[in-house]
């Protein structure tokens, strides 16, 4: 499963960008400059970027709380993310959503606060795509912990029953908050549940960007061709803690060590170098450019305009008078 050089390089750059955004977020938190809760996706970048990569602009993506990978992958910019993160009036959600990233330009309808509530939204967007006979696909990206949420079940059932163009992309990062997956799961894998709905599935390595991209691409084309939903489970590891307040003692150091050796960015970098696509020098440039992009996004966001009391009462209804 190999990708074209330019494609692979672009995915690599996006992974770097994701990590830079998240590291910068961590730094700002540590310096006490922001209060914004974090859930980083360190080590999972190949899943997030690989999953969003094959989507077209008109395709719909529902992402997760963990980092910005899939949002960057789908086309959101560092600048848009930071304006919203800092709650600015010029943010995509006018500072009202903050962590709940949403970008209509690239068909990201928003991020719910209750895990799994959007399982059914993905079925709904796919349903309307089918009804209006477009070939738009919806990709629902989700953590394994969230797959235990009740609505996962009727949502998958309806997707299969109505043969809807939706791909369920499950990021199994071994953790659900402060516990290993085995405190949540009676089985090793999540994906086998798809069989209960007659839905095809794959279980793949989540560290190798070419694998995640190619397998997702296949699933998306399956859905686009009217063959109904598909589920892919990506095995990865959450190298970050759950969030900024996580004590973290429960994480086994041997796991960190083992998975650390298969960092998706390192793996991709090595591939690019092995294939002669990337030199050490070009890599440094790339990394610097990415960091500059993030820094200037953060700077611009900090100096962006805050919303005012009038904004508090805007956008509740189509017409303001209703409140």
């Amino acid at each position, binding site marked *: 499963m190999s990708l074209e050089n330019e494609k692979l390089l672009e995915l690599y750059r996006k992974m770097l960008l994701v990590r830079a955004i998240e590291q910068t977020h961590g730094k700002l938190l540590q310096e006490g400059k922001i209060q914004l809760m974090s859930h980083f996706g360190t080590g999972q970048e190949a899943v997030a970027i690989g999953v969003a990569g094959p989507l077209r602009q008109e395709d719909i993506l529902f992402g997760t709380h963990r980092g910005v990978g899939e949002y960057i992958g789908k086309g959101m910019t560092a600048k848009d993310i930071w304006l919203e993160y800092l709650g600015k009036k010029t943010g995509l959600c006018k500072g009202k959503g903050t962590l709940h990233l949403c970008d209509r330009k690239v068909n990201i309808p928003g991020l719910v606060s209750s895990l799994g509530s959007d399982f059914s939204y993905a*079925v709904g967007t796919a349903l*309307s795509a089918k009804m209006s006979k477009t070939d738009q696909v919806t990709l629902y990206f989700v953590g394994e912990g969230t797959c235990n949420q009740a609505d996962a079940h009727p949502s998958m059932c309806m997707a299969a029953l109505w043969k809807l163009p939706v791909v369920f992309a499950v990021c199994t990062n071994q953790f659900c908050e402060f516990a290993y997956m085995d405190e949540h799961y009676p089985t090793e894998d999540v994906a086998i549940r798809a069989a209960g709905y007659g839905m095809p599935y794959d279980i793949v390595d989540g560290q190798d960007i070419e694998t995640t991209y190619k397998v997702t691409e296949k699933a998306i084309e399956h859905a686009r061709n009217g063959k109904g939903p598909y589920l892919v489970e990506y095995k990865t590891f959450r190298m970050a803690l759950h969030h900024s307040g996580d004590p973290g003692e429960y994480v086994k150091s041997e796991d960190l060590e083992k998975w650390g050796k298969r960092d998706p960015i390192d793996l991709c970098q090595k591939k690019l170098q092995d294939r002669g696509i990337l030199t050490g020098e070009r890599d440094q440039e790339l990394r610097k450019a990415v960091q500059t992009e993030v820094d200037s996004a953060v700077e611009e966001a900090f100096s962006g305009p805050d919303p005012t009391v009038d904004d508090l009462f805007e956008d509740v209804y189509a017409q303001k008078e209703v409140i």
Partner: protein
Amino acid sequence: MAKTISFLQAINEAMAEEMRRDSSVFVLGEDVRIGPFGQTAGLVKEFGEERVLNTPIAENAITGVAMGAAMNGGRPVLELMFCDFTMLAMDQICNHLGQWRYITGNQYAVPITIRTAVGAGFRMAYGHSQCLESQLLQAPGLILVEPSTPHDAKGLLKSAIRSDDPVVFFEHKKLILGGVEGEAPEEEYTIPFGEAVIRKEGKDVTVVAFGFMVYEALNAAQELAQEDIDIEVIDPRTIVPLDQDTIFESVEKTGRLVTVEEGRIRGGLGAEMAALACGDYFSLLKAPVQRIAAPMVPIPGSPVLEDLYLPNKDSIVRAVKRTL
């Protein structure tokens, strides 16, 4: 030109007309192709199975499916058979549906209509008989509608379907199943939200009642008239937005307010109206506000107990007298 239609027909026609007018309108819910209470009956014949979608039994998820479709250009009319089942979908309705426009900074509206049946009297006991309208008072961003006549049912449901805001539309079983009839224009019409109707003018006491309780209030009015007590009966038609102007213009005249609802009393619409009354409109009041509502108990299955549970003409009559 006016015609006579039943409440059930009114609901049905509103959906059919809007489906004809706008191809993005579709109906979904449990067994809507037949229609458990009959509101959606026949739609599948005209509009096909694609636009009249039977769903599995999973209220939270089907609400979410409707929401997702609405985010992507659809205009779904979702039936949740009994309002009791809206409790299964409260995460969607309260946490997300009414908040989505806001938290996405107006990028995504969620124009869906949720129709659901309320009301007791059919010996269906605790979980198929409740009036849970007021369970949604705390949620921002929703429109709450409850018509009492076929005319209003049709006009308001058409407005609901056209609304870019999410609407929860309550239909009382006694109106759907009771064969209640009324006049409605032959021609196309809609009714704006937030406009109450004075069902009966009167000078002594203002009685606000919605849904089926309007009829109990009108019966109370007749009975009270025999004792020369002349009440004004106001039907707000929409619970959110609430037509405070009409209600409190009446209270200005009467100085007395009785609120009536079939739902339970604590934290109900009556509480909200009473709170408005003794807040901004305190100076108008000449007597304590009386709240008529169900008590804070589950709805018992026993016919005897169910009848005792329900507010009715008699409890309204007594309440009116207490204000005098």
